């Protein structure tokens, strides 16, 4: 007989048979949870990238000191990409007799391509979001400009030969973060007004930018086209070349979502493992009858394999469809939070969904299911004979392998997946051991209480393996919920703490050594707290281990750019707060007289620098050479002055230097900046409040996304508990029939169920809470680099909540057994 035809016939029957329902349902939920998370995170990640692109106001920017050739615009047009132009240059605004140095930004009508502009009609008004820049003849300026020139909106100012109406206060330009080194407050005008000002001539020092945005594929297409055609002096800027602190925020956001999805996978695997047992038990009869009727092992094996494949395919597709619908509803509810429609999802989550279905099925169902071929035919005469147990090693290897693979795919981070997998495995081992111990301890206790107590405890002792499986399943479900709670509450809070409310939002550079003391006095007079003042020198890296280096020495774009420019170097005896040595050791007090360098680890990796290497810099014509003593990890999003390369005081302190500092300026205190500029004219102020605001928004939206991903995992965990309770349904049904026939009342039956499930719930809760906290601690400290404090609430909620929830679930599951007449239940078995 054609095995496929036979398998198809069986499969048609499978679809309406109850024994497969739970397995299919758990597989659908598993895939739905992972797909929903996949679809949603995919769209959110794209939205987050788009949002990050707002810093550039585009997806891609070409910038040059000369006008950008038309061919670049034509190519963008041919790829249906949106383009905008900007022109930036320093100039002076004149109002009555007062002048102010400003950074002029003239923009085309469709600026910005990504993000928006935020303005206030007057200093006291609410901030408004606008999509279009000022009209010709109008100017928007930052509050700092208004403060320094004592301007009010509506007043007229001069810029070059043209007069403008200062219409609005510019509180946020998407691309503010782009113009990091600005000399003064920014003013925004229309590009058409440039000729009237007469300020831009071929000899003027202006920066031309061509902004490009569109679908990701086309942008990448354009990027690879443009990369090889860039004339001398034209730079290509995109997100990965943007600010490191922003990249850091994005990476962390993605990792949070990955972790949340990973926990969903964990729950899914446990659900399928739980329901597989029931499936195998029920299928054993079919296999025994088939063997009796002459079916060979290989026939049973292949028919089962085909059915499982079909089952995997259909359940996965259903799960993907459910996941897609679920995330769609969510996305439409959340679109406002992400500033409009979320970008469409890619096809990748569909593959992830299919992969999850099959990997879960292979890892958790296949080993026991395939043993069904070996069910002895004698089972038809002796019911106690079942399928020989699957090889423990095969089970362990396949299920751990499947779990590890799924976690890796979901987390996209080996270290993160590794820690969570290790935490899960330890939890599973603990739960299994405890279950064995529990059955032993409970055996003598059964004789100490009344009949209900005995009945409740015998529920746990009736089947050692079932109790172990249930305890493990419940424990994993609770672990998942608690782990996500820890992530949600503690890790997100810790992440947001990395940018405290009063994190420095202004940097001062070009501070001359003579001004350092005066500046300190200025700050204390104004009550402004300084983050510390650091020496800063600019030098170019010329040699590594006596080998001369140039941009041509590297393939990597970033490496080429880094080598082509000057670095900011500093010197210090102590390591800065937001820095952590990851290789080698900090020089400390005894070695600060030696000539040593400390290099930021990502820079070191890009330029292939190791501890012990000899670096040589050119500092304004003076060569400086020293050995690398350590590599540092830098928290770029700490908003402290940070440096790629730091030297020992002995190495650098005798060279001409200036200083850098950062400080927090509360909103509305811009007048102090004007005063600062007047008192220290050589100092340059850099305002990073806009980029900080953007990072905060990424964090908030990232947190919100994690909250919703948590919701999916919660549903999966609830279903997993249902599967756990269903696993012992048959036994409970048989017992209920006997007990009710013997006259036990409904309340007695429910109380016995409560004793059984509350005991399971309390134990599972206790173990899962311990493991969740330990895993949470490892994830926080090892993966995210946060300090983790044990939250006593998780212990309280974990143990008591789990006891109550599983107890109630057990009572609810037992309820139907108490309302049907025993005879009718007998017929249903």
């Amino acid at each position: 007989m054609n095995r496929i035809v036979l398998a198809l016939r069986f499969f048609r029957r499978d679809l309406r048979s109850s024994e497969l329902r739970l397995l299919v349902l758990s597989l659908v939920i598993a895939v739905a949870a992972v797909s929903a998370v996949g679809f949603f995170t995919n769209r959110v990640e794209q939205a987050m990238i788009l949002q990050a692109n707002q810093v550039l106001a585009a997806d891609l920017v070409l910038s040059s000191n000369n006008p950008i050739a038309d061919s670049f615009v034509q190519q963008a047009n041919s790829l249906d990409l949106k383009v905008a132009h900007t022109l930036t240059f320093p100039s002076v605004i004149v109002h009555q007799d007062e002048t102010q140095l400003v950074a002029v930004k003239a923009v085309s009508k469709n600026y910005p391509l990504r993000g928006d502009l935020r303005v206030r009609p007057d200093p006291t008004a609410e901030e408004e979001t606008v999509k279009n820049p000022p009209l010709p003849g109008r100017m928007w300026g930052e509050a700092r400009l208004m403060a320094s020139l004592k301007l009010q909106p509506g007043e007229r100012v001069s810029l070059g030969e043209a007069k403008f109406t200062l219409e609005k206060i510019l509180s946020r330009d998407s691309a503010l973060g782009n113009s990091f080194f600005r000399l003064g407050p920014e003013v925004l005008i229309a590009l058409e007004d440039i000729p009237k000002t007469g300020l831009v001539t071929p000899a003027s020092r202006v920066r031309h930018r061509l902004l490009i945005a569109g679908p990701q594929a086309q942008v990448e297409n354009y990027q690879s086209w443009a990369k090889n055609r860039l004339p001398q002096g034209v730079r290509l800027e995109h997100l990965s070349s943007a600010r490191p602190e922003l990249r850091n925020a994005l990476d962390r956001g993605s990792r949070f979502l990955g972790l949340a999805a990973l926990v969903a996978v964990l729950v899914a695997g446990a659900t399928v493992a739980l329901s597989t047992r029931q499936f195998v038990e029920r299928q054993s009869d079919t296999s025994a009858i088939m063997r009796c009727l002459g079916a060979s092992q290989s026939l049973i094996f292949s028919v089962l394999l085909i059915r499982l494949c079909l089952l995997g395919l259909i359940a996965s597709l259903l799960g993907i469809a459910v996941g897609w619908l679920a995330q769609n509803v969510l996305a439409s509810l959340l679109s406002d939070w992400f500033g409009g429609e979320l970008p469409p999802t890619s096809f990748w989550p569909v593959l992830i969904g299919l992969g999850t279905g099959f990997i879960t099925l292979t890892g958790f169902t296949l080993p026991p299911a395939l043993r069904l071929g070996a069910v002895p035919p004698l089972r038809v005469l002796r019911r106690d004979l079942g399928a020989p147990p699957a090889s423990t090693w095969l089970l362990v290897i396949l299920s751990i392998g499947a779990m590890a693979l799924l976690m890796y795919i979901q987390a996209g981070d080996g270290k993160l997946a590794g820690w969570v997998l290790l935490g899960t495995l330890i939890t599973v081992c603990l739960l299994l051991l405890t279950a064995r111990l529990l059955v032993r301890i409970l055996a003598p206790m059964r004789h100490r209480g009344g009949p209900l107590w005995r009945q409740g405890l015998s529920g746990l002792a009736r089947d050692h393996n079932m109790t172990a499986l249930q305890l493990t399943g419940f424990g994993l479900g609770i672990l998942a919920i608690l782990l996500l709670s820890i992530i949600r509450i503690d890790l997100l809070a810790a992440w947001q703490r990395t940018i405290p409310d009063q994190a420095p939002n202004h940097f001062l550079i070009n501070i001359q050594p003579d001004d350092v003391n005066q500046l300190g006095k200025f700050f204390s007079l104004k009550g402004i707290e300084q983050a510390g003042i650091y020496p800063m020198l600019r030098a170019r890296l010329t040699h590594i281990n006596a080998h001369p280096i140039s941009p041509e020495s590297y393939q990597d774009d970033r490496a080429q750019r880094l080598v082509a420019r000057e670095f900011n170097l500093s010197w210090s005896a102590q390591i800065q707060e937001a820095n952590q040595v990851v290789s080698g050791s900090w020089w400390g007090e005894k070695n600060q007289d030696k000539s040593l360098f400390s290099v930021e680890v990502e820079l070191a990796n890009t330029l292939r620098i190791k501890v012990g290497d000899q670096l040589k810099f050119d500092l304004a014509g003076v060569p400086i050479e020293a050995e690398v003593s350590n590599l540092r990890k830098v928290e770029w999003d700490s908003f402290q002055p940070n440096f790629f390369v730091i030297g020992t005081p002995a190495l650098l302190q005798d060279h001409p230097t200036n200083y850098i500092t950062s400080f927090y300026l509360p909103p509305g205190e811009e007048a102090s900046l004007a005063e600062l500029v007047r008192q220290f004219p050589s100092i340059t102020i850099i305002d990073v409040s806009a980029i900080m605001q953007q990072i905060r928004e990424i964090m908030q939206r990232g947190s919100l996304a994690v909250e919703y991903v948590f919701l999916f995992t919660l549903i999966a965990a609830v279903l997993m508990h249902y599967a756990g309770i269903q696993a012992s349904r048959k036994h409970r049904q048989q017992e209920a029939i006997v007990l009710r026939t013997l006259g036990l009342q409904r309340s007695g039956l429910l109380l016995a169920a409560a004793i059984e499930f509350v005991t399971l719930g309390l134990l599972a809760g206790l173990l899962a809470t311990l493991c969740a906290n330990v895993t949470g601690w490892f994830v926080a400290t090892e993966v995210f680099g946060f300090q983790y404090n044990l939250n006593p609430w998780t212990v309280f909620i974990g143990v008591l909540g789990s006891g109550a929830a599983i107890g109630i679930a057990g009572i609810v599951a037992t309820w139907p057994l108490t309302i049907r007449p025993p005879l009718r239940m007998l017929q249903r078995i």
Partner: protein
Amino acid sequence: MVTDHNPEQPVVKALHVSKQLDGPGGTLTILRDISLHLAFGEVTAILGASGSGKSTLLGLLAGLDEASSGDIELFGQSLVGLDEDKRAALRAGKVGFVFQSFQLLPGMTALENVMLPLELAGVKKPAIEATKALQKVELADRLHHYPGQLSGGEQQRVAIARAFASQPKLLFADEPTGSLDQATGSRVIDLLFQMREQTGAALLLVTHDERLAARCDHRLLIKNGQLEPSA
């Protein structure tokens, strides 16, 4: 048929068969030195008290289990040295079973349960043959009922239809009326003998019901693990 009888075409033959099991109290001998023959078309009952080893013997004769010593031949082929798959191949399409607990698959309808042996035997239109078999046991109106929706007697009739659907040469019945009341049991037995009559299959019946045994050509009694002719 009696022991040491040597008919022309034995469908099943046991020679000095013993079965021992390892239990908590040491090795337990269930059957010792059993020899018997069953020819095509013969009907034999094996009687014995509960736990006497009747079902174990049935399992050994059907090749569902391996004897500890001795030889069993099924359709002239010795089962000694045959693995589980080869023994299954020997049964395929030629052996039918009726069990005390019916052994219908709960997820399949009556029709699908009867179709199962036909599908395994590669019959082209199994549903037609299965419907005919169910008509013969007067269950034409229960084709699409699940076992849970049928009475005990009806379930056993479905099992009989399944047993005869593939026109077997040999039928094993293990306490076929054990789970039924007397009236239903009688009806089921009538049907079993009637169907056997039509197919001419050999029938080996395990029972402790003397009245049922009385309808068989031969009766054997298991006592203390050994076979002896019944009165």
